[in-house]
C-alpha cells in the first residue's frame, strides 16, 4: 500500500476507532467499568497521535454518501489546526476525568469517545451531509453527557434543552442543503459559495443560524447555562474543542460563503460582537464559577464569530485554539474544586487557589489569559481579530474593545476570589445569603483535589500562556487564511493590553474596598435601581423563560388541542359515518319489512281477492252459465258495433 493510502486509512481510524470503542463502552455499560479508564485513555492517546500524523501527511478520504455528496474527511484548511486541538484536549480532559469516580465509568468514557468522534467528523467534513452527521451526533452525545446523572430529572431536562435548542438552529443546515441543491452548487462545503445568487442567501442564512446556535451566540446562548448540569469534564471539552467551539469553527471555514452574500458576513460580525458584550456582562454578574465560565465561553466565541464575519479566519482560528486550552483548564479546575469544596458558588471558593497551589497556579494562568493580560495567549489572538475588525468598521472595533474590557472584568473577578483568603470567602458566603437558594449538589466537599489532575492541567496551562505564538505575524500568516489578513499594529496591541491590565487592576482595587465594606462584590445588585438589570444578567437575560412562555408552552397547548381535534373531529367524523351507515341500514331493514315486504304482502292479498272474485261466477248451475254466455255475447256485439 502506498504511503498516501496508509495515511488515509489512518485518517479513517482517527474517526472510526473512537466511534466504535465509544459505542461499545457505552452499550456494555457497568460491566465494563473496570477496564473503562485504560481503554478510553489508550484510545484517546492513539487517536491523538494518529490525528497529528494524518494532519502532517495532509490525508483526505471520501466515499459515496447521499444526494451526490461524499462522506468525506479532509485535513486541509482550518481542519489542520483544529483536528489536533480536538484530539489533544480530549486526551487531557479524559485524563482529568479518570480521577473522579463518577466520570471513570464505561458509560461516561464511551459517550465521551463518541462525542470526540463526532467532533472530529464535524471538523474534517468536506460536504454538508458529512458535516451534519458529525454536527448532530455531537449534539445527541452532549445531550447524554449533560444528562449523565439521569436520576436527576433536571439534568436530563438540561440535556434536552441543549439538544432541542441547537437542533432548532440545525434546521438551518437542512434548509441550506435544499437551497444548495437548487442553486446548482452541490453539497460540497468548498463550493457552497458558488451557489447561484438567489439561493446563496438561503444557504448562508441557514449556515449562519446553525452555527450561531451551536456557538451559543445570541439569542441561543441560554442552552449553555443549562448545559452546566453535566460533569465538569464534559464542560471542559464542550466549551473548548467541541460543540460550542465548532459553531465558531464552521463560520471560520465558511467565511467565503458569508462574504459572497454581501450581508451574512456583517450579520455574523455584529452577532459575534453583540454576544461578546452582552454575555460578557452576563458573566460579570454570575455568582457561580461554572456559570461565569459558561457565559464567558459564549462571549469569547463571539470574538471567533466576529472574526469569521470580518474575514479574519487566521486570527479567529488562533483565538479558538488559545481559548480551548484556557477553558479546558478552567472547567477542569472548577470541577475539582466543586468536588473538594462541595460548592461551585464563587463566594465559597475564596482562597481555593492558595489551598491547592499547583492547580491554583494553572487556574490563575488560565484566568489571566482569559482577561487578556499581555503577553498571554488570548491577548495576542484577540488582537489578531480586533485588528481586522478595525479595518472593517471602527464601530465594530469599539464594541469588540468593550467586550475585551468585560473579559478582563469577569476573569479578574474570579481571580480575586480564588486568590483571596479562605476566611473572606466564608464571610462572603454568609453575606450572599439565602437569596441564592439552597445549592443543588452542595453536600460538603471531599477536601482534596486529585493528585493526577496537574498532569492534565500543566500542558493546557502551557498552552494558555504560550499559544500567543500563534498570533505572531510570521505564524499567523501561515495559518489558513492568514496570508491576506492585516497583522495587528503595535498600537492596537498596546491599547488592548493596557485596557485589560487597567480593568483587572480596577477590579482588584474595587474588591479590596468592597472587602473593607464587607461586601462580596460591588457591581451586581449593589446600586439601587440596578437590581433589575443585574437580575436579568444573573438570569442570562431570562431568554429560556421567554422561550418557554412564547414557544414551548404554546406548542404543547397546540399539540393538546390538535390531539383533541384528532380524536373528536377527525376520528369522530369516521365514527359518525360508521354510525350513520348503521342507522341507514337499520332504517332500510325497517323499510324492508314495512315497504318492500308490505308491498309484496299487499299484492298477494290483492291477487287472492281477484281469485275470490274469479270464483264468483262458478256457481255450477247451467242456467246461470247460459245467462253469462248471453251477456258476454251481447257485450261483444256492443264492442263490435262501437269499434266498427
Amino acid at each position, binding site marked *: 500500500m502506498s504511503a498516501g493510502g496508509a495515511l488515509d486509512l489512518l485518517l479513517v481510524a482517527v474517526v472510526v476507532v473512537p466511534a466504535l470503542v465509544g459505542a461499545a463502552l457505552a452499550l456494555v455499560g457497568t460491566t465494563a467499568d473496570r477496564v473503562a479508564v485504560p481503554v478510553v485513555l489508550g484510545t484517546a492517546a492513539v487517536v491523538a497521535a494518529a490525528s497529528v500524523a494524518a494532519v502532517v501527511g495532509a490525508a483526505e478520504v471520501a466515499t459515496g454518501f447521499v444526494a451526490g455528496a461524499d462522506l468525506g474527511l479532509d485535513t486541509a484548511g482550518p481542519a489542520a489546526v483544529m483536528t489536533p486541538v480536538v484530539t489533544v484536549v480530549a486526551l487531557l480532559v479524559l485524563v482529568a476525568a479518570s480521577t473522579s469516580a463518577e466520570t471513570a465509568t464505561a458509560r461516561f468514557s464511551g459517550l465521551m469517545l463518541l462525542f470526540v468522534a463526532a467532533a472530529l467528523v464535524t471538523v474534517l467534513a468536506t460536504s454538508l451531509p458529512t458535516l451534519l452527521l458529525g454536527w448532530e451526533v455531537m449534539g445527541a452525545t452532549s445531550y447524554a453527557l449533560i444528562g449523565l446523572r439521569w436520576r436527576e430529572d433536571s439534568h*436530563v431536562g438540561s440535556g434536552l434543552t441543549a439538544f*432541542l435548542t441547537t437542533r432548532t438552529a440545525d434546521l438551518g443546515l437542512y434548509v441550506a442543503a435544499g437551497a444548495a*441543491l437548487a442553486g446548482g452548487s452541490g453539497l460540497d462545503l468548498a463550493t457552497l459559495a458558488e451557489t447561484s445568487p438567489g439561493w446563496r442567501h438561503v444557504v448562508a442564512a441557514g449556515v449562519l443560524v446553525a452555527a450561531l446556535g451551536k456557538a451559543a451566540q445570541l439569542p441561543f446562548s441560554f442552552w449553555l447555562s443549562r448545559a452546566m448540569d453535566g460533569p465538569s469534564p464534559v464542560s471542559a471539552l464542550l466549551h473548548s474543542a467541541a460543540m460550542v467551539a465548532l459553531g465558531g469553527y464552521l463560520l471560520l471555514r465558511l467565511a467565503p460563503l458569508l462574504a459572497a452574500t454581501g450581508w451574512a458576513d456583517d450579520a455574523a460580525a455584529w452577532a459575534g460582537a453583540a454576544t461578546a458584550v452582552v454575555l460578557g456582562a452576563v458573566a460579570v454578574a454570575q455568582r457561580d464559577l461554572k456559570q461565569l465560565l459558561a457565559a464567558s465561553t459564549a462571549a469569547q466565541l463571539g470574538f471567533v464569530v466576529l472574526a469569521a464575519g470580518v474575514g479574519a479566519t487566521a486570527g479567529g482560528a488562533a483565538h479558538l485554539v488559545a481559548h480551548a486550552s484556557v477553558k479546558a483548564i478552567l472547567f477542569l479546575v472548577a470541577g475539582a474544586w466543586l468536588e473538594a469544596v462541595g460548592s461551585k458558588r464563587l463566594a465559597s471558593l475564596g482562597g481555593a487557589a492558595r489551598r491547592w497551589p499547583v492547580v491554583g497556579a494553572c487556574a490563575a494562568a488560565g484566568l489571566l489569559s482569559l482577561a487578556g493580560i499581555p503577553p498571554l495567549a488570548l491577548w495576542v489572538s484577540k488582537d489578531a481579530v480586533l485588528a481586522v475588525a478595525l479595518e472593517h468598521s471602527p464601530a465594530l472595533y469599539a464594541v469588540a474593545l468593550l467586550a475585551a474590557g468585560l473579559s478582563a472584568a469577569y476573569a479578574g473577578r474570579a481571580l480575586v476570589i480564588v486568590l483571596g483568603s479562605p476566611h473572606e470567602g466564608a464571610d462572603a458566603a454568609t453575606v450572599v445569603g439565602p437569596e441564592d437558594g439552597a445549592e443543588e449538589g452542595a453536600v460538603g466537599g471531599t477536601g482534596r483535589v486529585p493528585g493526577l489532575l496537574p498532569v492534565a492541567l500543566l500542558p493546557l496551562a502551557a498552552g494558555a500562556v504560550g499559544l500567543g505564538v500563534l498570533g505572531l505575524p510570521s505564524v499567523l500568516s501561515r495559518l489558513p487564511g492568514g496570508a491576506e489578513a492585516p497583522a495587528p499594529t503595535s498600537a492596537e496591541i498596546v491599547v488592548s493590553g493596557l485596557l485589560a491590565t487597567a480593568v483587572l487592576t480596577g477590579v482588584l482595587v474595587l474588591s479590596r474596598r468592597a472587602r473593607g465594606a464587607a461586601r462580596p462584590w460591588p457591581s451586581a445588585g449593589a446600586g439601587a435601581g440596578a437590581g433589575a438589570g443585574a437580575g436579568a444578567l444573573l438570569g442570562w437575560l431570562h431568554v429560556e423563560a421567554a422561550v418557554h412562555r412564547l414557544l414551548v408552552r404554546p*406548542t*404543547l397547548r*397546540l*399539540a393538546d388541542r390538535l*390531539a383533541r381535534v384528532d380524536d373528536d373531529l377527525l376520528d369522530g367524523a369516521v365514527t359518525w359515518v360508521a354510525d350513520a351507515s348503521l342507522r341507514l341500514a337499520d332504517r332500510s331493514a325497517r323499510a324492508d319489512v314495512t315497504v318492500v315486504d308490505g308491498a309484496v304482502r299487499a299484492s298477494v292479498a290483492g291477487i287472492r281477492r281477484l281469485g275470490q272474485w274469479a270464483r264468483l261466477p262458478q256457481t255450477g248451475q247451467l242456467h246461470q252459465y247460459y245467462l253469462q254466455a248471453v251477456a258476454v255475447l251481447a257485450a261483444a256485439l256492443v264492442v263490435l258495433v262501437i269499434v266498427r
Partner: protein
Amino acid sequence: MLSVLVFLPVVVAAALLAPSVPDRVARIVFVATAAVEVALAGAVWAAYDDPGPGALALEEQVPWIPGVGSSYHVGVDGLSLPLVLMTTVVFLACAVFAAREQERPRLQAALFLFLEAVSLGLFVSADLILFFVFFDLSIVAMYFSISGWGHGNAARSALRFFLYTFLGSLALLLGFVGLYVASSPHTFDMLELAAEPPLQGTGATGALVLGAILLGLAVKTPTFPFHTWLPPAHSDAPAIGSAVLAAVLLKMGTYGFVRFGMTMLPDAWRAWAPVLVAVGIVSVVWGALVALAQTDLKRMIAYTSVNHMGYVVLAVGAAGLVSSGADDARAVAVTGAVTQMVSHGLLTAALFLLAGVMFDRRADYGLGEYGGLAGPAPRYTALFAVAAFGSLGLPGLSGFVAEFQVFAGSIATAPVAAVATVGILLTAALFLRAFQRVFTGPTAGLAHGFPDVTAREWAPVAGLLLLSVLIGVLPRPLLDLIEPAAVAAAALVSR
C-alpha cells in the same frame, strides 16, 4: 425465484394449519422459514441487475385471467427490491421475538407466514389485479392478527381497521378499473401501462382516476386526514402485529404512490402534485404535534408513523413539480422517499417490539406510569434510546439518510417544504420527552422490578437497529439500488 420467495411461506403456513403440529415445532418452523426468506431475498439481491427504466428484473409471467388482460406477472426493480428485503428482515425479527408466544403459537405462525407471503407478493406484483388481491389479503390477515392476538378493545379496533382500509381498497380498485378501461389494448399490466400511460392529456378524467387511486393509498399509508384508524389498531394489536403493520403494511400505500401514480398517470400526477405537497406537510406537522400530546407509548409511536409517512408524501409530491426545473433534486426526493420506507420499516418495527416488551411485563403503555426505568432495565433503555434517536432522524442512522434527501430534494423543488423541517424538531422533542418520563429520574411506578430484556427480545431489536446504523453510515449499497429507479420515476413524471 421470486415465486419461490412468495409462495414458500404460504406452503409452510398451510402445513402449520394441521392441528397435529406441536407448538414448539411451530415456533421453530416460523423462525426457520423467516430466516430462509431472508436468505432468499438476499439471493434475489445477489442475482439482481438493474433492469433499466421501464423494465423489471427476475421477471416471471404466466397467463391468469387472459379475458381481461391480467396475468400472474412478477418482477423487481429498485423501488420494490429494497422493500422486499426490508419485509423479510422485519418478519424474521418478529418471528424471533414471538418465539415465546404462549397464545396459539401454531396459528399465529401460520397467519404471519401467510401475511409475509402476501406482503412480498404485493411488492413484486407487476399486474394491477394481482396487486389488488394481495392488497386485500393483507388487510384480512392483519384483521385476524389484531382481533385474534390483540388486547384491550381488539375486536373493535380490528373491525375499524378492516372496514376503513377495505373501503380505501375499493377506491383503489375503482382507479385500477379506470386505468384498464382507458388503456388500449385493455390491460392490467403495470409495465404496459407505464410504457404507454393512458389518460394523458385528458384533464379531468385522468385526475379523477388518479384521485381514486390516491384516496385508496392515502387511507392505507395513512396520511392526514385519513389516519385515525391507525392509533387504535396499533394500541390494541399484538407487538409483532404492530411491527408488521407499521413496517410493512403502511409501505403498501407509499409504494403505490411511486408505482402507479408517478409512472402510470404522469399528467394527472403533475396536476395533483401541489395537493400532495400540502398533504405531506400537514401530515408531517400534524402527526408530530398530535404525537407530542400522547400519553400512551404505542399511540405516540403510531402518530409518528403519520409524521414519517408525511415525508414520503411530501417527497413524491415535490417530485411532481416538474416546472421547477430541478430534475436532479426531484430524483433526490424520490430516492429519499424510498429510503424512508425502508428506514421507517426497520426503526418502527424496533420501536413496536420494544413497546411489546413493556406490555408483556406490565400490560400498560402509559408513559406516566413509569419512571427511571434505566435503573432496573439498562439494556432495554439503551435499545429504546437508539431506536428513538433513529426515529427522530439523528444522522448515523437510516432515518437521517432518508429525511435529509427528502428535505434537500423537496426544498429545492418546493421551497415551502422547509416548513416540514419543523417535523424533525417536534419528533426530537416528543421522543426525548417520552424518554425522560419513562426512563430517567428516580425509579417509580411500574418500573420497580421491571425485568431487563432477554436475548430473545433484544436480539431482533438490535438486529433491526444495526441495519439502520449500517444504512445510516454506509448507505451506498442501498442507494445504488434505489437511485436508478428513482431517477427513472422522476423522469417518467415529466412526460
